[in-house]
């Protein structure tokens, strides 16, 4: 078994920054990512068969990503590509490398930075071909240079709701409309955001740039409107949207329908907390950072000894925060393993901490301005599929909601959340349904018991014939 001082799960901004910082202080580091390239979401590299001649031409993020990844060039970091972390046991991670059998890597310290995934939104027609998440659309464009359709409609909320279509349009895609659920930023909100903005001018500038791009390309944009339906027989042919009140409840009679062949949904992100839950790390709930978040101390340590977290996987805060958090965690780990002294730790950390505080302020102002509202959970009708893996409709779930506050019970009786995605798509919708029915806050609804594997894996890759079972019924302890 290979042994490392530090194992990092996730090669996005948080993980790369942490790996570079830790390795530069002499730690033996493994950096693991299930994708074939580094970069995570925002710094995603182009796919095989593509080359980028000049990074700056593909966009600022691509360039920044290249710079960050280049930090690893002269450092010794064992990078495991196409490698899934299936589970974590005591001081070992169990990994599955593409096509191969499971293997274990041991660590003294662990940093988990698995990023976030797109928030799924359930509305009639959400499972029709042609309806995809905004992040998926972005990935298609970034890695394959493919637009998801020829008449693309964006529905979403938050600053990225503008960034995504602007980026796509920049690649020449035909965007026929954008709706944002939040109101057009008013003077008050702008001041609020501006106040937190010292040192964040680049971010504001980006936002302004995106907006300008959309305006100059005459892409229709409507505020205070939400997606209510995707229509079509075998794929999406049109979408219906409507005006909402401040809780995102649809105002009847305001529906409008647009012909489209692709609908991109971008209502924010969920932190990917699976590995933290498996380890029993203490969690919290913050709607504005994506719901379930991981409790971290100022250095990024979780409540479990030797386990750190950084980046959007611990709560949505954006790539700048992810990088700062990654570096701070790496420094602290280097100090705990005796590679730097306590006094140089605080010196080295000072700069990152300043960036962090600044960025966190900005990001929380943004997140609050675009916080998800309860109307998003009220779009399904009886016939709408809630669990797409198991094809469970709302009407078959309603009876079990009468009597329980436990999503596991709903799961047991309806198969909701038992399929391939293990509830990633439907779990929040179920929690919201229970919360509404029983009149309790969604933050108080428990989640299904965490279990491995983090993603589906072939039994042939898991099977290990060297493990014998001669003694029947031995206890594991």
């Amino acid at each position, binding site marked *: 078994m290979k042994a490392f001082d530090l194992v990092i799960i996730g090669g996005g901004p948080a993980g790369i920054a942490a790996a570079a910082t830790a390795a530069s202080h002499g730690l033996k580091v493994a950096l693991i990512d299930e994708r074939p390239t580094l970069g995570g979401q925002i710094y995603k590299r182009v796919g095989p068969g593509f080359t980028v001649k000049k990074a700056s031409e593909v966009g600022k993020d691509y360039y920044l990503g290249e710079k960050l990844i280049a930090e690893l060039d002269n450092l010794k970091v064992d990078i495991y590509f196409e490698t899934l972390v*299936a*589970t974590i*046991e005591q001081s070992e991670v*169990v990994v599955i490398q593409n096509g191969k059998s*499971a293997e274990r890597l041991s660590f003294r310290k662990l940093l988990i930075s698995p990023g976030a995934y797109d928030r799924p939104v359930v509305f009639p027609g959400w499972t029709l071909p042609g309806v995809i998440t905004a992040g998926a659309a972005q990935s298609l464009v970034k890695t394959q240079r493919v637009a998801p359709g020829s008449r693309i409609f964006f529905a979403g909320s938050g600053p990225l709701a503008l960034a995504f279509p602007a980026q796509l349009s920049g690649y020449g895609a035909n965007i026929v409309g954008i709706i944002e659920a939040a109101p057009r930023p008013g003077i008050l909100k702008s001041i609020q955001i501006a106040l937190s903005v010292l040192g964040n001018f680049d971010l504001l500038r980006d936002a302004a740039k995106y907006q300008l791009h959309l305006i100059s390309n005459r892409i229709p944009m409507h505020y205070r409107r939400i997606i209510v339906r995707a229509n079509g027989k075998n794929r999406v042919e049109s979408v219906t949207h409507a005006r909402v009140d401040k809780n995102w409840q649809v105002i009847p009679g305001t529906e409008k329908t647009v012909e489209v062949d692709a609908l991109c949904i971008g209502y924010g992100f969920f932190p990917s907390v699976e590995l933290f839950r498996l380890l029993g790390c203490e969690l919290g709930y913050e709607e504005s950072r994506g719901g379930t978040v991981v409790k971290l101390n100022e250095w990024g340590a979780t409540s479990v000894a030797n386990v750190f977290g950084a980046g959007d996987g611990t709560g949505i805060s954006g790539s700048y925060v992810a990088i700062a958090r990654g570096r701070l965690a790496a420094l602290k780990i280097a100090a705990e393993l005796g590679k730097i002294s306590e006094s140089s730790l605080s010196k080295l950390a000072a700069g990152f901490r300043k960036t962090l505080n600044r960025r966190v302020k900005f990001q929380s102002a943004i997140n609050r301005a675009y916080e998800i509202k309860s109307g998003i959970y009220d779009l399904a009708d009886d016939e709408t599929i809630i669990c797409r893996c*198991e094809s469970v409709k709302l009407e*078959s779930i309603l*009876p*079990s909601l*009468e*009597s*329980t506050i*436990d999503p596991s*019970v*709903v799961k*047991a*009786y*309806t*198969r909701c959340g*038992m*399929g*391939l995605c*293990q509830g990633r798509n439907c779990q929040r919708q179920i929690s919201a349904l229970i919360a509404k029915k029983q009149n309790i806050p969604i933050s108080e609804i428990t989640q299904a*018991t965490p*279990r*491995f*594997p983090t993603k*589906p*894996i*072939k*039994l*042939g890759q*898991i*099977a*290990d*014939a060297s*493990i*014998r*079972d001669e003694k*029947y*019924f*031995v*206890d*594991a*302890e």
Partner: protein
Amino acid sequence: MLNSDFLAGYLSQSENFEELPKQSDVVIIGGGLLGTALSYYLATAGVEVTLLERNDLNREASGTNAGSFHFQIALHQLTENMTAADDKRLADETKLMLDAAKLWDEIEKELDADLGVHFTGGFMVAETQEEFQVLRDKQRIENVAGLETHVLTGNEMREFAPYLAPDLSGIAFCPREGHANPLLVGPTYAYRAHELGAKIRTNCEVIQIEQITGISGYRFKIHTSRGTILCNRVVNASGAWTAELSSQLGLNLPMALSGLHVNVTEPREFFLHSMVQHIGRRLTLKQTANNTFIIGGGWPSRAEKFPLRYSNIWESAAGNAAVAVRVLPMLKDVQLVRVWSGVWAYTNDFKPILGESEKIPGYHIAMVPTGFTLGPMVSKMLAEYMTQPGTQNLLPKEFHVDR
């Protein structure tokens, strides 16, 4: 006929949260399959019965098992050197299985509910020649006891079950084996018992069982998280917690616990009608009505106490997967989606603990290791014992509480 939508609505319905009655002839502790079945059989006999469950009904072993009927003689029943006495024991155990099979045959009619009961047969596979010999030996015992099994090898085996590994040394096939939906059976018993007047109370943890005298007719005062209740007879059906509660009364039960590991896969086109077990290794395997494969068979998980779940260990997933792929090679390309684990209580001789304590009259225990297969059956036996005076001999001696 009851269906699952309806049951889901009943499960924690408000009546279950109503106050405890002040007293009851019988109090059952535990709302798993044994407790709920017993409440039904006692209620049909007109006994005043109250069932107390700490959590929701059916959330421990009875709601986390694979729902298989294991009627064939299996690995855990065998000893290193089988003697004539062992043959006799196995024959007796097989007869009990036959009674259970008959009960399962009739249960959907009896409870007027769809419980997903299917008799689709079960394989017991052998890899080595010694294992194949065991299949032949056990078949002899089973056939004498009246359980139909067939042993196949070579081309005959490959023709009968072409999907199994062609180089297995042989297989036994028992047409009577099958399965039911474990999520429905216990709650349905509870619902029918409730219709007959049994009081079902959930979210009610028994903290102490106190023996009392002086209040005529009552021998026990049960202290719970929701107050106290007097009763004349107690049945401890608390599964993995049976020993803990009994030790309060000075009883030392010959039982232990483990977490049990289960693997569940993505769905594949349905082809495997019968369950598969292994006579020499830990394996139970079947394809469900949802087309997924459920794979288990006794691999351990880490035992943790309530309210923690029993947590899975990778070695069990890997070892279990290896045996499964060895026996059913197509599985190597099927994806594992999730594992789970449940708490499992067993006795050192794998026999039930069933009946009334001689040391503490009125104190009963209902506990059995293969509790899905045998749960309804042993509960019915205990109910008969409790309702028909002079039926001491109904319960086999080997099951005695004070053994």
